């Protein structure tokens, strides 16, 4: 485990150095990705864009777990859908194993999707209520041309054991409404794993679950990630679970990644004022919390149709520098190795 993360660190450093030259080596590379949704007036007239994702760049290596943290409406779900090949990028690309996802043909796209598993946020909504567990899990296999019934059955049993749905025979014939929330989420995870993907995209996989089950599901995911050498993108707004789950963390605000770092660096030394605010807003159980007020930046996240000029956080920022923050957009500043932030405070 330790050696593993060492290795990843080295890989990481390499990739940062070679960033501008080539993007080989990365399993998934998101390059200057923009996803804009056009707003229309009266059917034809153009009324601007919702800039849900606006220039996001990162590399994801094999076996690496990253977390994307941000509030609702910051574009993290659009980013996720673009990675899954469900949105066409307006500009930029999602490159998986050297191939641009936007240029894949129908058959290639299907192959791509079998390489990328998706764990939905709401397990009950993600499972068809009229299918039993065995049908839910065999569907992806049928779609991807596993014709032998015996093989399908074997693979389903294997994956159910991996997500600890014991005893398998009992669960095979159950329908989603007969399962508890945690068990439903296990079925969703099993479905995402049944095609043996290389990458799992987990969109708030535990936010709908009970607190005591959350840890269990997160540990299960972490375990599966290590067994299968999976890369995982974990999308969440809950900072306290991130450190147990991923190596790197990306903080997203209004369509941009404002800070990217190793989780330990981020917790020790957060840079961007927005990251500070997120950390301050997250509580640990402590009776002393009740005695003080929390510091929360005023206002709300900006409209993505007309985002503020310059730094998008400047109207809420306590360290606002007049004449700079609202004029020019901050580039990425690297303060430690692999620790980037888009903030003029660190120029």
């Amino acid at each position, binding site marked *: 485990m330790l050696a593993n993360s060492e290795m990843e660190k080295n890989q990481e450093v390499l990739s940062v150095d070679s960033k501008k030259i080539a993007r080989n080596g990365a399993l998934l590379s998101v390059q200057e990705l923009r996803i804009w949704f056009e707003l229309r007036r009266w059917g034809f007239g153009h009324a601007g864009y919702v800039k849900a994702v606006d220039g996001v760049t990162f590399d994801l290596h094999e076996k690496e777990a990253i977390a994307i943290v941000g*509030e*609702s409406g910051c574009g993290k779900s659009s980013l996720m859908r673009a990675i899954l090949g469900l949105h066409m990028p307006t500009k930029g690309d999602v490159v998986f194993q050297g191939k641009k996802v936007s240029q894949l043909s129908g058959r290639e796209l299907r192959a791509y999707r079998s390489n990328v598993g998706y764990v939905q946020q709401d397990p009950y909504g993600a499972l068809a209520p009229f299918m039993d567990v065995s049908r839910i899990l065999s569907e992806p296999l049928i779609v991807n041309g596993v014709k032998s019934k015996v093989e399908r059955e074997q693979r389903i049993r294997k994956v159910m054991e991996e997500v600890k749905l014991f005893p398998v025979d009992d669960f095979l014939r159950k329908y989603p409404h007969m399962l*508890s*929330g945690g068990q439903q989420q296990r079925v969703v995870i099993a479905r995402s794993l049944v095609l043996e993907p290389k990458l799992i995209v987990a969109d708030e996989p535990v936010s709908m679950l*009970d*607190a*005591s*089950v*959350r*840890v*269990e599901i*997160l*540990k299960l995911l972490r375990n599966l990630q290590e067994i299968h050498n999976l890369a995982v993108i974990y999308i969440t*707004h*809950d*900072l*306290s*679970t991130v*450190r*147990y789950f991923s190596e790197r963390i990306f903080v997203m605000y209004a369509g941009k990644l404002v800070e990217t770092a190793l989780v330990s660096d981020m*917790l020790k030394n957060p840079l961007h004022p927005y990251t500070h*605010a*997120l*950390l*301050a*807003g*997250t*509580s*640990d*159980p*402590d*009776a002393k*919390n*009740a005695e003080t*007020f*929390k510091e*929360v*930046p005023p206002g*709300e996240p900006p409209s993505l149709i007309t985002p503020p000029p310059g730094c998008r956080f400047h109207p809420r920022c306590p360290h606002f520098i007049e004449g700079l923050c609202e004029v020019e957009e901050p580039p990425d500043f690297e303060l430690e190795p692999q620790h980037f932030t888009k903030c003029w405070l660190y120029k």
Partner: protein
Amino acid sequence: MNNNNHSLLHIEDLVLHFRTQKGLVQAVDGVSFDLGQKEAMVVLGESGCGKTSLAKAILRLLPRNVGTYSGKVYLDGVEIMGMGDEEFRKNVRWAKISMVPQAAMNSLNPVLKVGEQVAEPLMVHAGMRKESAINEAKRMFQHVGVPLNFINRYAFELSGGMRQRVAIAMSLVTAPRLIILDEPTSALDVLTQANIFNVLKRIKHELEVGFILITHDIATSSELADSVAVMYAGQIVERSDAHRFFTAPLHPYSQMLMASVPRLREDKEPEFITGQPPSLLDLPTGCRFASRCPYRFEKCDQDPPLFKKDKRFVKCWLHS
């Protein structure tokens, strides 16, 4: 536990069972506690442990399939369980005890302006005229930090955090003695959550009001709690002040619950609780947590009473 002269809410042996085709669901099964004046109590527990049913039992918001509904509830020393339904509706519900139900922000009426909705309880309960009720609503908007010009807006024009504030304003407007909040922040973002808790803290300092906060989010619950009640399978298994609870909980279930919280500032691997809570249809005799408890011994086959230990209560034989 009999000093109900001083306490805001005093509950004795509250029982709420539901009739279903499969049998009796014992959602609230013999709950007793005391809530002091201006005290904020947090009710913690897994989903399905009867937290919401407890709130509904206090407010007498009952569905049609009620089996047993009994016990004694004293509000400021006055017994309210014996009141007739009409009297209860007029004098207690929303007049003395108000509630912010789960997902309240999504249940605002879409065709009414939010100001009118906040004013409505005053018009119904206090018989106030509309103009003065709206003025009162404006005052509440200031308390919860909603800009005054939002008073003429509709719910869909507000963000989630603002709608939640409106729901809180609605519960405050009749100047109740007690507010019951059911998962007030579970669907909100981190910063919005922090904002809402700031609002609740401010209300707590400024107004003479007690809180019952129902949640499964232990970390954020500590933002408001003076005291804690842990519920398991329809019963309160621990009742304690917040300081001692968050540092050293007594009941094995509370200890495991605390250990399952992921922490941002401490290097502690969270542990999950194995097994599942018992079905409320078919409860075990003896301690209801026994099957999941690591400290189980012979005595656990009998139902433990609520033991008192330095002003804390715990339902576990380990503390007899």
